């Protein structure tokens, strides 16, 4: 997948930005606060209908304005072109998404059609943060590879909120809510089981990709390991039926506790994925360098996974990661970006690109300055 051009209106500090991108590396150069991340966020709206940072539509709308628009032309690996546009109106609180000028009814139909992989300073939380950060990673990737998963996930979240409300109400009013809980239990287990099943399968497929890319960065002596620890029983048995039974018995076991706390304590919203390097917990034992290497390995694996699932090379968005990475890993990553397809790399410093980097042909440099984006022109830095 490639973005050929983009048109951004009243989005963050981009009042009117138009840019034609290259097929390879697109470097976004500029000082702090000029609008590099904002442009990547606009790209995220185009591909995923929303911000990958989780910012709301009202927040990314330019201050004092009522409507933002992002549009552009995307091209699939087979050469099919799509005109894609997203527009948000604040007064009406409406967001509309168009593919080839036809309105898309459900945003879940869009997610995954234009796959993206994001590596930003926030991504570090995947290895350093809590279980919620790793669940977010799983959901972000699996949602792009499976529409069913995304829909299950959205419904699961809704069911969870409804069920929590029943539990909370019954706690406050001190009444028995067994009858009221029952329909929500059934829906929770139904969606939840499919989500857990899918996460199992995903991690199983991702593991060899992570192992391989980790080895290619760090050499062969260190072995990264991901272990899925679903909140429901059935760690060993991964059939849907086994997961469902585990879920049901765990719900039964925790019923009293749930009642006391007034909140749902069982289900994929409490899953964990533990990360280890050579059998030592990453969060507790890994060095900073190991964290970084693992993060890149995970991202490369994510890229390969999505490419395989969607039959389409994801667009790679690298936000400011060179401040996080050392020269060695940055170089590895850049080598990769040269071979992956289209990438967008934001940075404050030119020096992250090796001097021999070829700015001709497929690679372009853009200067981002106060919400404007200008093509610097092809320029060979070498000699």
């Amino acid at each position, binding site marked *: 997948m490639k973005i050929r051009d983009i048109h951004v209106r009243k989005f963050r500090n981009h009042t009117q930005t138009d840019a034609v991108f290259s097929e390879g590396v697109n470097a976004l150069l500029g000082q702090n606060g000029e609008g590099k991340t904002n442009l990547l966020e606009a790209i995220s709206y185009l591909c995923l209908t929303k911000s990958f940072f989780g910012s709301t539509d009202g927040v990314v709308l330019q201050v004092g304005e*009522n409507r933002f628009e992002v549009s552009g032309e995307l091209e699939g690996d087979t050469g099919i072109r799509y005109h894609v546009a997203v527009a948000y*109106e604040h*007064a*009406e*609180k*409406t967001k509309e998404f168009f593919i080839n000028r036809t309105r898309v009814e*459900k945003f879940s139909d869009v997610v995954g059609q234009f796959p993206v992989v994001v590596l930003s300073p926030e991504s570090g939380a995947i290895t350093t943060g809590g279980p919620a950060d790793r669940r977010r990673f799983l959901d972000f990737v699996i949602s792009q590879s499976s529409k069913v998963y995304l*829909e299950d996930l959205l*419904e699961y979240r*809704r*069911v969870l*909120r*409804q*069920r929590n*409300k*029943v539990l909370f*109400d019954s706690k406050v009013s001190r009444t028995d809510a067994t*009858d*009221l809980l*029952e*329909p*929500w239990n*059934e*829906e929770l287990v139904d969606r939840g089981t499919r989500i857990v099943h899918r996460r199992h399968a995903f991690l199983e497929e991702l593991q060899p990709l992570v192992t391989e890319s980790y080895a290619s960065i760090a050499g062969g002596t260190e072995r990264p390991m991901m272990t899925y620890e679903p909140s429901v029983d059935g760690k060993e048995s991964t059939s849907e039926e086994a997961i469902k039974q585990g879920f049901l018995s765990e719900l039964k076991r925790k019923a009293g506790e749930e009642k006391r706390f007034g909140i749902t304590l069982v289900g994929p919203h409490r899953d964990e994925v533990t990360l280890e390097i050579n059998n030592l917990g990453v969060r507790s034992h890994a060095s900073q360098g190991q964290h970084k290497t693992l993060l890149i390995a995970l991202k490369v694996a994510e890229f390969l996974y999505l490419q395989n699932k969607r039959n389409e090379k994801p667009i790679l968005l690298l936000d400011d990661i060179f401040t996080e990475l050392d020269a060695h890993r940055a170089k590895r990553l850049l080598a990769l970006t040269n071979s992956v397809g289209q990438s967008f790399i934001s940075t404050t410093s030119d020096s992250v690109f090796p001097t021999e980097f070829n700015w001709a042909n497929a690679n372009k440099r853009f200067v981002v300055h106060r919400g404007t984006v200008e093509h610097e022109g092809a320029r060979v830095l070498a000699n």
Partner: protein
Amino acid sequence: MIFTAESIEQLSEQFSQLPGIGRKTAHRLALYVVKMQREEVVSLARALVNVKDRVRYCTVCSNITEADPCPICSNTKRDKTVVCVVEEPTDVLALERTNEFAGVYHVLGGALSPLDGVGPEDLRIKELLQRLSDSTVEEIILALNSDVEGEATTLYLSKLLKPLCMKVTRIARGLPVGTDLEFADEATLSRALEGRIAV
């Protein structure tokens, strides 16, 4: 936008309370009313009040109607042994459009949604049970929306109705996930009705 006339501001505010109308559209509608002829505005206002005064709920099926019982309930050609349970009056309209259903309806007035403060006692479930106790109903078809609230209501009702020893079915899940019945096209709806399954 700030209007110089208080009355426009008020009308706009009223419009924006309506479902699907945002602030901007509300302003546009209010300004449109200013441009309308006085008679037009009067007849609009009258139409609004008329609806409120004349329309009531059918004492049998809870559908909205001017005559009680409603035309469907009082139609002798309709099969009173089959009752189709729906969320809203708009769902009755959607099912009637298919021309496939010859039974009668029961309108619940919504679906279970604890987050919106809607529990079983806020839906016309009592009325449904009462209706079943003194009539000759043989089959109940649950035709609720395919979102999580509709499904929860289906599950809740099936559990409640099954012990009453009648045939309880639900429409097939031919409906795309999360769609409202009223937005489903006729063909899909007919298929869903035809392929109903026992619960």
